[in-house]
C-alpha cells in the first residue's frame, strides 16, 4: 500500500507539473502573440462612428496581433489598407447612425457577456446582461432599436444542446424585452408556440417597430421567417427555411441564409428574397455562410467566412446572384456600414 501511495504521488506530481507547465506556456505564448504580430496597434478613439463622409466598414479585428478582438474600421472604397483599430473590444457589433451595439465579454471567475449601446464617442448609453455567448447584433437604421442574439448552453453532461435567446431594446422608451419567446406567434392564423422555439437574427424596418427574425423549432421541422410588431408584442410566420434575415437599405429585399444541405460541414447558402414578388435568388457564393449579412449598398452584400482558429475574412458579392465573391477585408468579422 505504501509503495502504491508513493507511485501515485509521483504520478500526480508529474501530471500536475505537465498541467501547470503547459498552462504557463500557453499564457506566455498568447501574450507574445498579442504583443507581437503585424496587426495594427489599438488606439482609443481610433474608430469614428459619426455618420457622413465616405462610407466605412466597422468590424471585429481578427488579424493576429495586438488588435485581435477589437473594433476596427476601413473605408468601404479602399478596404485593403488604412485599417484603424480601437481599444474597444466587441465579439460582435453593429454600427448605425452614430451609435454602436457592442456585444462584449467581461472576465471574472465566470465570463459574463453584455450588450452595450454606445454613442459615436464610445460613451456607454445602456448595458444589458446577456444570457449566453454573443452571436448576432443589429440596430435599426436610426440607431433607436437594438437587437441581439445569444447562444445559451451549459445544462448538463447529457444535454449539451444549444438554444438561443434574442432580445430587443428600445432606447427611446428605455424598454428591454429580454427574450422574444414572450411574444405571441401566429402561423396561418393559428397560435404557433412550440416549446422548443428559438429566435435569432433580427433586422428592423425604418418605422422602428416592425422587424424580421428567424424562428427555429426542430420539433416543427426547421426555421421560419417571422415579421414582428414590437409594440403589439406579436409575430407572424411568413415563410419556411429562412435564417438571419437582413433588410436592404431601400427596404425591398432580405438577404438570408437558407439551409440547402444536410451535410453539417456546408449547410447554408446566402439567398436574396424580393419582398414584393417573394422570389428567391441564390447568390454567387458557394461556400457555406453562417452569418447575418449586411448591405454595403442596395446592390452589394458583405458577410464573414471563417479562415481557421478564431479568424475570419469579410467578403462581398452582388445582391442579384451575378458576379463572384470578392475578398474585401482579411482578418475581419461581423461587418456593418457607417454611411
Amino acid at each position, binding site marked *: 500500500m505504501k509503495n502504491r501511495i508513493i507511485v501515485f504521488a509521483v504520478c500526480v506530481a508529474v501530471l500536475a507539473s505537465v498541467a501547470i507547465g*503547459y498552462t504557463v506556456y500557453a499564457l506566455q505564448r498568447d501574450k507574445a502573440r*498579442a504583443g507581437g504580430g503585424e496587426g495594427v496597434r489599438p488606439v482609443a478613439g481610433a474608430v469614428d462612428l459619426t455618420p457622413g463622409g465616405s462610407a466605412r466598414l466597422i468590424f471585429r479585428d481578427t488579424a493576429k496581433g495586438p488588435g485581435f478582438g477589437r473594433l476596427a474600421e476601413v473605408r468601404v472604397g479602399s478596404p485593403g489598407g488604412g485599417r484603424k483599430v480601437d481599444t474597444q473590444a466587441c465579439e460582435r457589433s453593429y454600427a448605425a447612425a452614430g451609435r454602436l451595439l457592442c456585444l462584449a*465579454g467581461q472576465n471574472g471567475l465566470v465570463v459574463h457577456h453584455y450588450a452595450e449601446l454606445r454613442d459615436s464617442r464610445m460613451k456607454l448609453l445602456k448595458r444589458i446582461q446577456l444570457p449566453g455567448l454573443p452571436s448576432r447584433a443589429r440596430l435599426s437604421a436610426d440607431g433607436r432599436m437594438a437587437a441581439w442574439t445569444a*447562444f445559451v448552453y451549459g445544462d448538463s*453532461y447529457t444535454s*449539451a444542446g444549444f438554444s438561443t435567446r434574442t432580445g430587443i431594446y428600445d432606447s427611446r422608451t428605455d424598454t428591454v424585452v429580454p427574450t422574444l419567446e414572450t411574444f405571441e406567434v401566429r402561423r396561418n392564423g393559428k397560435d404557433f408556440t412550440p416549446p422548443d422555439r428559438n429566435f435569432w437574427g433580427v433586422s428592423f424596418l425604418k418605422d422602428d417597430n416592425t422587424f424580421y427574425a428567424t424562428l427555429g423549432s426542430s420539433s416543427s421541422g426547421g426555421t421560419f421567417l417571422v415579421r414582428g410588431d414590437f409594440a403589439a408584442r406579436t409575430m407572424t410566420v411568413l415563410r419556411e427555411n429562412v435564417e438571419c434575415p437582413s433588410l436592404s437599405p431601400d427596404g425591398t429585399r432580405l438577404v438570408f441564409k437558407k439551409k440547402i444541405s444536410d451535410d*453539417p460541414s456546408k449547410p447554408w447558402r446566402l439567398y436574396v428574397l424580393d419582398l414584393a414578388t417573394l422570389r428567391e435568388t441564390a447568390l454567387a457564393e458557394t461556400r457555406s455562410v453562417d452569418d447575418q449579412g449586411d448591405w454595403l449598398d442596395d446592390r452589394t452584400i458583405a458577410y464573414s467566412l*471563417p479562415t481557421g482558429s478564431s479568424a475570419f475574412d469579410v467578403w462581398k458579392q452582388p445582391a442579384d446572384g451575378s458576379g463572384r465573391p470578392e475578398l474585401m477585408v482579411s482578418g475581419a468579422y461581423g461587418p456593418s456600414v457607417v454611411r
Partner: protein
Amino acid sequence: MYLSETRASDKARSEGERPGRRRGLRGLVSANVFALGMTSLITDISSEMVTAVLPVYLVTGLGLSMLQFGFLDGVYSGSTALLRIVGGYLADKFTARKAVAGSGYLMSAVTKLGFPLVGASVPGIGMMMAVDRAGKGIRTAPRDALISLSTPPESQGRAFGVHRAMDTVGAFIGPVIAFALMSMMSTSLGTAYDAVFVVSFCIGAIGVVALALFVRDPFTRKKTARVAVSLRAGLGMLGNAAFRRACIGACLLGLATVSDAFIYLALQNRTDLAISWFPLLPLGTTGVYLLAAVPLGGLADRIGRWKIFLAGHACLIGAYLLIGGVLDLRGTALILIVLALHGLFYAATDGVLMAHAGPLIPEELRTSGLSVLQTTQTLGRSVSSVAFGAAWMRWGPENTIQGFTVALTAAVLLCMVLLRPGAAHGPEVADV
C-alpha cells in the same frame, strides 16, 4: 456462489467496516469503494471541465455553427446502449471488470488531448465526442459491479450513496477549474483553450492512475467461474424473478420519467425565471443529490432499497404536481421545492437501484446484469423523452405534465403491487 459471496463480504467488511476508527466518507465504505469514488470524482472534474468549455470552444474558438454542434451532439447519443452491454459481457467473460472500466476511463482521458489535435475538423470533433461517450458507456456497469462486489449485501445502499456523492463533488469542481483557467487567459485570444484540454487530460490521467493503483478486482484470481459466462447466461438472469422485476420496474418507471431538460424548461415556463439563472437550475438538483445520496443510501439499507427507489419516484410525482400546476405554488418557493424534490429523486434512485439489483445477480454475471438493468432503464427514459416532447407540442406543458403525473403514479402503484419484494424469490436476503 453463496460461499464466495460470503467470503467477499467478510473481506470487504474486515477491510472497510471499522466503525469509529475513521471518520468521514472513508470510514463508511470499503477501501475499494472509496478508491472507486475517488476515481469517479477525479474523472468527473476532468470531464465536466471540458463539458463547461466545449460549447464556447466550438462556437467562438473554432467558428462552428450551432447546427454543426447539434449534429455532433446527436452523433454519440445512440451508440452507447449497445456498448454498455458489450462492455458488461466482456468484463464478466474475462473476469476483468477493472480492466474494462479502466479502458473506459482511459478512452475518455485520451479524447481530452484529441480535441486540440483535431482542430476545427467536424468529423474529428464528432469522433472525439463519440469516443468520450463510448468510454463513459463502457465503464459504468463494471464500475458499479466493482462497488457492488466490494460491499457486503447489507451495506450496498450506503456504498453506492458514497460513490455517487463523491462523483457529484467532481461535477461541481470541474466547471470551477475550467472557468478559473479561462479567466486567466486573455479574453480576446481564442487560442488558450488547449490549456484547458491539457489540464483536463492530466486530471483524467490521474483518475486512471488512481483506478489502476487503488482499485482491486475482487475476483481476478479466481479462474473457475461457477456460472458459465455467455450471452445465454446473461439472458438467463432474467429468469430470476427478483431481478426480472427490477428490470421491468425500472423500465416502467423510466417510461414515465421526464428528462431533466424538460423539468427545467417547465419550471422556467411556470415561474418566468430570469434566463440568466437557467444554467444554474441543474446545480440545485445536483446539490441536493450530493447532500442526500449518503443518508438515503444508508436508509435504503435499513428499510429496503426498492422502497426507497419507489419513494424517490414519489418525490418526482411531487415535482410533477408542482410544475404541472396541480398544486398551486409559484415563485422562488416553487423553484426551490421542485429542485429539492428532483435532487431527492436522484439520490433515492440512481445508486439505490444498483444497490438493490447487485445482490440479486450472481457475481460472475454482475457486470452484465447491471448493464442490462441500466440499459432497460435508459431505453424507457429515451422513449419517454420523445413521447414527452411530442405530447408537449400537442397538448401544451400543463396537460402533458399532468398526464405524466398520472402515468408515473400508475407505474409506482404497479411496482408496489405487482413487483413488491418479499414475494417468493431467490437471493434477495439483504433487501428486506
